[in-house]
């Protein structure tokens, strides 16, 4: 995809995310932290990741580990558009017996490398995967998405330490830094900023980027280094919907029909303005 196509893809993902959340009905969905990751997924699935749904077990494929497991409303639609999931898979979201619940379930045929849900377990797993890929002499990359709140977890830093010790220059950690966690502002609950500097102190080549600017994201994620890479993507929780943006109560919430209509209008409206 070219940059314009990626931007259109991102808009589509945002609409799909809202639709998925609305279909989830009274079960609700993780709207805030899902919408903040939209551009990250759009850029990854729009071109950064070397993956092929026709050959999901390709040894040389890039691996994406979604450690921040609760952003499925953006993740599942991205997998659907890339051809890893069917419409039926998507429609089964949060229905009894479906594999597609609020946290993704590992299934390599669906392009899902890791079962998310318990924060920080993904980044540690990704370090092991990156180590294995290096040992096998592969030239692929392992990408892992973590949240900024997730970085409160000690295991994130155990993993970062090991990534640097084992010189995993095939690993890219993407922090969806939306500044909010369940109980409020990350700065108030447990201030772990500045994350890029902290990752740098752990031996990463790290940078800060506007996490909703697709061009800047592409640039940051295309970078190569002799160190593990950390891209701190500064995002807005609930991005794209005025009544959700930066509102912690939208971390996990039920979307009414009226709210859904307004949200869709805002997202499509934004499209027209651009």
């Amino acid at each position, binding site marked *: 995809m070219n940059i314009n196509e990626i931007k259109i893809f991102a808009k589509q993902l945002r609409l799909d995310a809202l639709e998925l959340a609305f279909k989830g009905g009274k079960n609700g969905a993780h709207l805030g932290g899902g919408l903040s990751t939209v551009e990250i997924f759009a850029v990854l699935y729009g071109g950064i990741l070397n993956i092929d749904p026709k050959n999901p077990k390709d040894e040389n494929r890039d691996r994406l580990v979604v450690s921040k497991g609760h952003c499925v409303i953006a993740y599942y639609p991205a997998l659907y558009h890339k051809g890893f999931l069917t419409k039926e898979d998507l429609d089964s979201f949060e229905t009894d017996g479906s594999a597609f619940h609020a946290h993704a379930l*590992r299934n390599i045929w669906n392009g899902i*490398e*890791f*079962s998310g849900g*318990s924060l920080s*377990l993904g*980044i*540690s*797993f*990704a*370090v*092991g*995967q*990156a*180590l*294995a*890929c290096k*040992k*096998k002499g592969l030239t692929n990359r392992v990408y892992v998405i973590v949240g900024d709140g997730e970085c409160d977890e*000690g*295991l994130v830093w*155990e*993993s970062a*330490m*090991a990534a640097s*010790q*084992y010189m995993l220059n095939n690993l890219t950690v993407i922090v969806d830094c939306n500044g909010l966690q369940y109980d409020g502002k990350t700065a108030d609950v447990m201030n772990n900023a500045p994350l890029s500097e902290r990752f740098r102190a752990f031996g990463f080549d790290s940078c800060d980027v506007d996490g909703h600017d697709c061009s800047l994201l592409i640039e940051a994620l295309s970078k190569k280094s002799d160190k593990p890479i950390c891209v701190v993507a500064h995002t807005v929780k609930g991005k794209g919907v005025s009544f959700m943006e930066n509102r912690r109560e939208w971390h996990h919430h039920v979307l009414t029909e009226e709210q859904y209509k307004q949200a869709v209008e805002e997202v499509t409206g934004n499209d027209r303005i651009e």
Partner: protein
Amino acid sequence: MIALNNISARTFSRLGQRGAIFGIAACEAAKEDSKFILLTADLAQLSGMDRFVGMFPEQFVNAGIAEQNMLGMTAGLSVEGYHPVASTYATFLSMRGCEQMRHYFGYMHLKAVLIGSGAGFSQGYSGNTHYTIEDLSIVRAIPNLIVLSPADAGAAVLLFCEALKSDSAVYMRLTGGLNSPIIYKEDRQFRIGGSVKLREGPDVAILVTGTVVDSALKAAEILGNDGISASVTDIYSIKPIDKQRILEIASSSKALFTVEEHSTIGGLGGAVSEVLAKNGNMPKLVRLGIRDNFDLAGSYESLIRQNRLTPELIAQDIRKNI
């Protein structure tokens, strides 16, 4: 591969369960399998891994003092087709790493061999942080995990070889220290889910696991001198457990006794109770093991005595409870 005989049993015994696995069996496994990989959390030297590290430096990963990340890396290596074995003290593996064991190896059902060493009281004066008296209860509750508990160093080596072939992750609980008592002197198949009846006896049945199997055999001898004939069965596979054998033994004995260097809550005693509870008309079951308490630190022998796990005290408690 590795054979158990009079000579190798003595070598393994000198090294203890941990030393025999990491000093010998792991090296043999790595010779045959380039995907074999050994991980530890800063316990390489203590675990007797130096020989392995020297022979296979590319197949060794030290996670530092970070048990949780050791297990995450183990999972990542496993999913990429490696055959990882990860080890640290049983207390840290089963408790610091509990959620990792549940998530990666239970929920995600990845394969690995996870070895908790120094279980029970073998860490003496290190105190309760280092004793592992509840790992069987914890690990046994996790779906998809296999739980093994060998009686001696030879059995540890053979069970380790079995574990490497397993389709599910295996938690191995290692007890005892160097120069551990020898129970098995010849090659045998240690099937996952099996057990070994070491001694026949129609009166009472002792079901036992770990290095205290030796004490249970000695207790049975003491009881024999008193005219009480006790059978002794090594329950080396805690999960899956040999239900058929336990029910057979239960139906032909007047009383059952479980013996373990582990809390009497949820370990071998718990597992055997669960088997019996489904079947009515069973003989009485008495669970001998570590009482529900944190003891003051002491020598291995004193802790074993305080918890009534010496041969004499096991025999006494059995006599009292028949």
